[in-house]
């Protein structure tokens, strides 16, 4: 009986997530679509929790729904005339695309059904569990990310760095927001320290419970988004030189640790016995800073001068004129 109730919940969640995804992409009004996309991300976070993936639930809520949504909304603010533009291709091309999508979906679904019916697959999960005590951490996801598949994570940080370089290359920062009113200002003053503390907690707890560098970095970036919305033009980021150091520190520390262990006769990124926990924490601290800086930079839209406490009178006048 309980099993059927769980499956009923699964059907409701799966149906809702598909419906929200459909509504988000089919909406003619882009702003509505983006808001639906944020709701979609939050529902997806609930599904990750249902599928016993709390690390993903945290990351999805902070990054997938929160920061992606904030980035899309900021981009929508740049667009001069949206909302009235209905941008869908129609006619025979649309029909052909629909048929193509259905064929792709049908093929993949058929393959999945066959894979599902096949005998119990050989899983890497058992290997993860067997070697977990030697990995330096007890959270299996962190162990996979920073020990077994450390190369993946190193290259992922390189991808983030490349994206940050691209963003810095293509444009100056977006114009800042007006300083917040008293109500929102008070909220910023309360939330930003709280976000920083929770970020630090998630970074530390990631070794043995859900959390880690990505979630922590996302929360710090969320604090930066709050600061920017509150009227801080640089979103709390330090000056341009320090920004560059923060952007590269993730990759730099990762590679340095990888090379340093080779001095002791180990392979690249093969942590010496007993040292893994400390080295993983060191890499994660650097990765958190790099991720937070990259995401904050993406939200700002380019390099900015150092943070100032408040905007100058002239800047405020300019913003009021532009709004």
């Amino acid at each position, binding site marked *: 009986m309980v099993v059927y109730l769980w499956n009923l919940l699964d059907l409701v969640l799966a149906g809702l*997530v598909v419906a929200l995804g459909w509504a988000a*992409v089919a909406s003619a009004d882009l702003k509505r679509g983006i808001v639906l996309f944020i709701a979609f991300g939050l529902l997806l976070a609930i599904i990750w929790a249902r599928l*016993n993936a709390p690390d*993903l639930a945290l*990351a999805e809520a902070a990054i997938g729904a929160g920061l992606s949504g904030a980035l899309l909304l900021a981009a929508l603010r740049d667009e001069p005339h949206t909302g009235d533009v209905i941008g869908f291709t129609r006619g025979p091309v649309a029909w052909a695309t629909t048929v193509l999508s259905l064929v*792709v979906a049908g093929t*993949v679904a058929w393959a999945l059904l066959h894979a599902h019916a096949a005998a119990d697959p050989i899983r890497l999960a058992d290997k993860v569990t067997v070697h977990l005590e030697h990995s330096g951490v007890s959270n*299996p996801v962190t162990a996979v990310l920073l020990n077994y598949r450390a190369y993946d994570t190193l290259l*992922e940080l390189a991808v983030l760095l490349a994206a940050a370089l*691209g963003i810095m290359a293509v444009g100056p920062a977006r114009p800042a927001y007006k300083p917040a009113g008293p109500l929102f200002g008070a909220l910023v003053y309360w939330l930003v320290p709280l976000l920083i503390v929770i970020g630090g907690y998630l970074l530390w707890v990631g070794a043995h419970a859900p959390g880690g560098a990505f979630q922590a970095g996302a929360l710090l970036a969320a604090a930066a988004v709050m600061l920017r919305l509150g009227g801080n033009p640089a979103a709390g980021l330090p000056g341009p030189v320090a920004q560059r150091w923060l952007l590269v520190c993730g990759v730099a520390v990762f590679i340095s640790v990888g090379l340093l262990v080779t001095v002791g006769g180990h392979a690249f990124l093969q942590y010496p016995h007993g040292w893994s926990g400390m080295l993983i924490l060191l890499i994660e601290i650097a990765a958190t800073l790099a991720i937070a800086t990259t995401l904050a930079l993406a939200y700002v839209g380019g390099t900015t001068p150092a943070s100032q406490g408040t905007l100058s009178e002239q800047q405020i006048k300019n913003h009021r004129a532009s709004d």
Partner: protein
Amino acid sequence: MLATDLIYSIAGVALFALGLRAALLHRTLLGRILAINICGAGIFLVFVALGYRGPDLVPDAVPHALVLTGIVVAVSATALALALGRRLREAGDE
């Protein structure tokens, strides 16, 4: 409990397909980026559903780690795409 992974992986396939269709048919850049994000979420859903091993077993951590990587790569790709789009529009205005 076997049905759970199947339900979510089929939902993932559906999201992938509707995201793909919308990414091809949307005329605005923002709409396309949004659709590609939905498409990616569908792939993540298939992946994590396949890593689910019922309520009593610890789920497979490898797909979780890969999807976590994927979420971060998706947001950085989105950010870069939006920055390029902004530059393109500015170049068009000039």
